[in-house]
C-alpha cells in the first residue's frame, strides 16, 4: 500500500512523542503550530542524535513503515547509522511525509535549537517547537518564494505574541 502524500501531522507528532523521541519541530509545521493559517504537506524535525534517542526514533519509524523517498522507487529503510549523522533523511510513512534532519542547513543541531525553542502542551502531548524569531530567520535565509510568503505572517504573529506578553 502506498503512503499518503499529505501528512497527518498531529498523529505523526503524537506517534513520535508516544515513542519517547526527543526532537524540535521546524519548517512549515512549526509555523502552523505558532498559529500561521498556512498549509504544509510534511513534518520536519531535528532530532537529538544520541544513541538512545536514535534507538527510540528507529522503533517509531519501523512502526510507521517509514521508507526513504527514493525517486528510483527502491524500498530503502532508514538506518540507525544515518540517523546518528548530521544528514537529512526524507521519508514517507503510513501517516505521510516526514523529514528527519540531523541538523539544519546551516548546521544547527537539536541542542543548539533547544535554546531558541518553546514548549507547547496540548492535552497529554508536549511538543518542542523552534521559536518564532528563529523560524523567521530560517525562512528568510532560505529565501525561496514559499518561505518568503510565510515570513510576514510569522512577523505578525510575533507582534501578537509580544502584545500578549506586555498585557499580562
Amino acid at each position, binding site marked *: 500500500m502506498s503512503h499518503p502524500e*499529505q501528512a497527518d*501531522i498531529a498523529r505523526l507528532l503524537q506517534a513520535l512523542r508516544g515513542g519517547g523521541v526527543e526532537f524540535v519541530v521546524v519548517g512549515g509545521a512549526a509555523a502552523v503550530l505558532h498559529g500561521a*493559517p498556512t498549509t504544509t504537506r510534511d513534518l520536519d524535525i531535528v532530532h537529538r542524535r544520541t544513541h538512545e534517542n536514535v534507538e527510540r526514533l528507529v522503533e517509531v519509524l519501523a512502526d510507521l513503515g517509514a521508507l526513504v523517498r527514493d525517486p528510483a522507487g527502491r524500498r530503502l529503510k532508514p538506518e540507525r547509522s544515518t540517523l546518528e549523522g548530521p544528514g537529512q533523511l526524507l521519508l514517507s510513512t503510513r501517516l505521510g511525509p516526514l523529514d528527519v534532519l540531523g541538523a539544519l542547513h546551516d548546521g544547527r543541531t537539536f541542542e543548539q535549537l533547544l535554546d531558541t525553542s518553546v514548549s507547547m502542551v*496540548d492535552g497529554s502531548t508536549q511538543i518542542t517547537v523552534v521559536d518564532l524569531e528563529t523560524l523567521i*530567520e530560517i525562512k528568510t*535565509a532560505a*529565501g525561496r518564494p514559499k518561505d518568503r510568503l510565510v515570513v510576514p505572517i510569522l512577523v505578525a504573529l510575533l507582534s*501578537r505574541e509580544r502584545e500578549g506578553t506586555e498585557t499580562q
Partner: protein
Amino acid sequence: MAAHLRRAYPEPVTRSGESLSNVASQSRSVPSRRAGEPVLDWLRRVDPDVAQAVADVDQTLLDECLAMSPLERLRACSVATRGLARFHVAP
C-alpha cells in the same frame, strides 16, 4: 557496482524534485540580527519587500487560527492541504 554503493541512499530531494543540497546552496547569506535589534527592523534591512507585506496580513485569519489549540491547528492544516491537493491538476 559495489554492493555498498547500490545500498547508498539517494540524494534527498524535495517533492518538487529539487535536491536538498541545491536548496541549501541557494540559502542566502543574510546579515545577522544585531544584538537587541527588533525582528521587523532587521527584516527591513535584509528583505524590505517582505517587511512591507507584514502590514497586509489578514488579522482575522490569525484570530481564527489562534483560537484553536496547537494540535487543532495541525488538523485544520491537514484538512486544508488535502482539500488543496484535490485542485492540483497533473501537467
